[in-house]
């Protein structure tokens, strides 16, 4: 049997305290109503119990006032819960600008992480204290879910689509990482640890594995290897659009619709390029399905993102 059995989870992120505060508010409301209902039932059942075996209950009157009261008060309380809950929810899924982006690939039954500086790890995630970390996640097979109780953070990891979540750790230490979406035979073993480290220790850890290639460099190498560069020339003279500054921009498609060129769009264009072609270009790009792994796709995303940073908006 475990030597310790905690009653409350550790609190190790900026969100944890906020979620707990709302949780305690709901606990208080619940305790109030449980005491009220249990108390009234107990009191009425004893006070108005059948004694002689011949009494009857008093005639029942309807009371609109009472009905309105006990409809209105719970309704008002739930509005408070709703607004407060929405605030935390939006916060949980809106990473602050400048968050450090760690890419995650989930598969039956392991977690793979790629740090921006290139270090990779499996089932262990090292992060620096005090730095907002955004996880950009995708699954190779079924739906998984990344859950760190100490951070009060959870997000499904889907096949075929990126999902994101962010956190900022506030306490060094080692915390459980769980898969919380049932994913098959070894679901309960698909877990690991998050290690929150002082930034200096994190820097040391990053360089510990020898020479690492930053993600965008790896992405650039792939970009050349796969031959993307042939058409997507930086000066826009190729058969495809230049990708410089393309990330995050609104693009117009041949179909007339517009969309924002985000991570999902980049990934989609590599795997199924004919589907959403940018206006003014021919659908001639071949698919790279099967030629590039999910990790590779993430490196390409990182590279194309980095192109946006360097140069200003140059029309592709």
């Amino acid at each position: 049997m475990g030597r310790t059995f905690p009653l409350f989870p550790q609190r190790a992120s900026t969100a944890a305290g906020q979620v707990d505060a709302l949780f305690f508010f709901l606990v208080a409301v619940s305790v109030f109503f449980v005491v009220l209902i249990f108390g009234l039932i107990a009191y009425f059942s004893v006070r108005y119990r059948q004694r002689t075996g011949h009494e009857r209950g008093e005639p029942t009157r309807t009371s609109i006032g009472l009905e309105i009261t006990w409809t209105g008060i719970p309704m008002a309380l739930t509005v408070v819960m709703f607004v407060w809950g929405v605030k935390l929810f939006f916060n949980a899924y809106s990473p602050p600008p400048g968050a450090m982006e760690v890419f995650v690939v989930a598969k039956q039954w392991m977690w793979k992480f790629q740090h921006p500086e290139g270090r990779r790890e499996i089932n262990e995630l090292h992060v620096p204290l005090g730095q907002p970390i955004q996880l950009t996640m995708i699954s190779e097979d079924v739906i998984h879910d990344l859950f760190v109780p100490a951070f009060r953070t959870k997000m499904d990891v889907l096949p075929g689509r990126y999902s994101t979540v962010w956190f900022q750790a506030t306490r060094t230490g080692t915390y459980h990482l769980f898969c919380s979406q049932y994913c098959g035979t070894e679901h309960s073993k698909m877990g690991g640890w998050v290690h929150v480290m002082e930034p200096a220790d994190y820097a040391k850890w990053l360089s510990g594995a020898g020479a690492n290639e930053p993600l965008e460099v790896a992405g650039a190498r792939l970009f050349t290897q796969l031959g993307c560069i042939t058409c997507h020339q930086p000066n826009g003279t190729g058969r495809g659009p230049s990708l410089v500054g393309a990330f995050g921009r609104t693009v117009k498609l041949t179909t007339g619709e517009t969309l924002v060129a985000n991570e999902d769009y980049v990934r989609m264009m590599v795997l199924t390029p004919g589907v959403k072609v940018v206006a003014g270009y021919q659908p001639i790009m071949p698919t790279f399905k099967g030629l590039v792994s999910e990790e590779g796709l993430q490196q390409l995303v990182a590279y194309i993102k980095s192109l946006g940073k360097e140069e200003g908006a140059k029309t592709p």
Partner: protein
Amino acid sequence: MTNAEPVLKLPRENYLNANYGIKSWLLTTDHKRIALLYLVSVTLFFVLGGIYAGLIRLELLTPYGHFVSDESYNKLFTMHGLIMIFFFLIPSIPAVLGNFMLPMMIGARDLAFPRINLASWYIYILGGIFTLTAAVTGGVDTGWTFYTPYSSTYSNTHVITMAAGVFITGFSSIFTGLNFIVTTHKMRVPGLTWFRLPLFVWSIYATSLIMVLGTPVLAISLSLIGLERLFHVGVFNPAMGGDPILFQHLFWFYSHPAVYIMILPAMGVVSEVIPCFARRKIFGYHFVAFSSLAIAVLGFLVWGHHMFVSGQSIYAGMVFSILSFLVAIPSAIKVFNWTATLYKGSVIYRTPMLYSLGFIGLFTIGGLTGLFLATLGIDVHVHDTYFVIAHFHYIMVGGAVMGYMSGLHYWWPKITGRLYPEGWGRLAALIIFIGFNLTFFPQFVLGYLGMPRRYHTYPPEFQVFNVMSSAGASILGIGYLLPLIYLLWSLRYGRVAGPNPWAATGLEWQTTSPPPTDNFSETPAVSDEPYNYYDMEPVPHA
């Protein structure tokens, strides 16, 4: 107590002895006999689902899972969920108590479509056979939720057989719902206006609406899984342009309202039992009646609260959150009205009453913890943890099963003509209440600590609460075993009940127990609102 009471005798002719032989049961169109066919079958499935639950709790005594393999564990919780939900909870109150009582409560001789009623039982059994086949030939490991793409592409278990079982059984639910709706509209006795209907009828009616409107969507979702597995059509497969989240939308569009299929009938039972044993007319009749309909309607608009962290838009999350809060309000209205009915009543602690009071308490906890899950910011943390498991067991076991037990004990004398031993009844109710809380309350703590659901192995610091839970489960098991024994015993040795042992209002009590095949020797008439306990005689002593 004096012995001056007249000695009661069973009526010479009733639906049980009208004719004999296996054919007279298997080919009956009498709603009362069909109710008993359902009673036997749902009890068997309850025992089976309970055995699965027992094995799960046994395995979770230790963190590292020594007793069964990962694969077997996943099959255990899948089969437990599927059997309990589709083969026990959904048919339990409607198909057993509703089938028996609905025609009697409205003064009818039978349901509108007696043959469809019998057909629905056969369909249920056919679905059951598929399910048992899937169980015996190796089980299913998808979880009762069949989430794609695991169920459609990755699982190597008997998904299609199982899905076929649930698909088929769904039609039994649709038939029953349809039958109840038509019966309620067309077969009420003269004078029985809508607002003179017992609240059990209102809740069964609301339930039937959900069954008829929701179940086809479940059938569609399961068919699509079958198509994916057999022909790889790709609706849910992202590699072929499909969307696995679409399945979750389809599935919960039925399966969230299904929660109300399970709880509404139990609420109906409680609305009968509380006035009877408080000897007082129900408080706020119209509010209780309309809250059932409100739940049925709003229940269809909240499915997305199962998907707050699934990758659906955060704005969709917002909408589903506020709607989920809204659906809690009619439930709260019911709880307050039941409680107010006790005020200045004359409360008698009989077995059905203990279960109904237990229902109010446990349902209150289940409902309030539902608010945690509707609150977006908190759901992110507790979603897919034991907090959810605890919450829905408070609703489904603390609520629906307690309601079923309450109704079964309340109407047992009407169904069988005999009384069960009251002392044993109360003892079992108490044991079930204690065992239930010990099983499921620790799971709230486990959930907030972060233990994910469907975990075969878990970190050792969670063991203490798991041991408490398993201990509670064994008490709960004993609690359920007792009624099985004394109710069977009472069939032969129980005291004869007489037509109305609780001095209850309601047409079902105005005929003999057990009733004759045609229910009433002459058609009753209604000229008053229900639950007029002020004018009733006192309840005879136990």
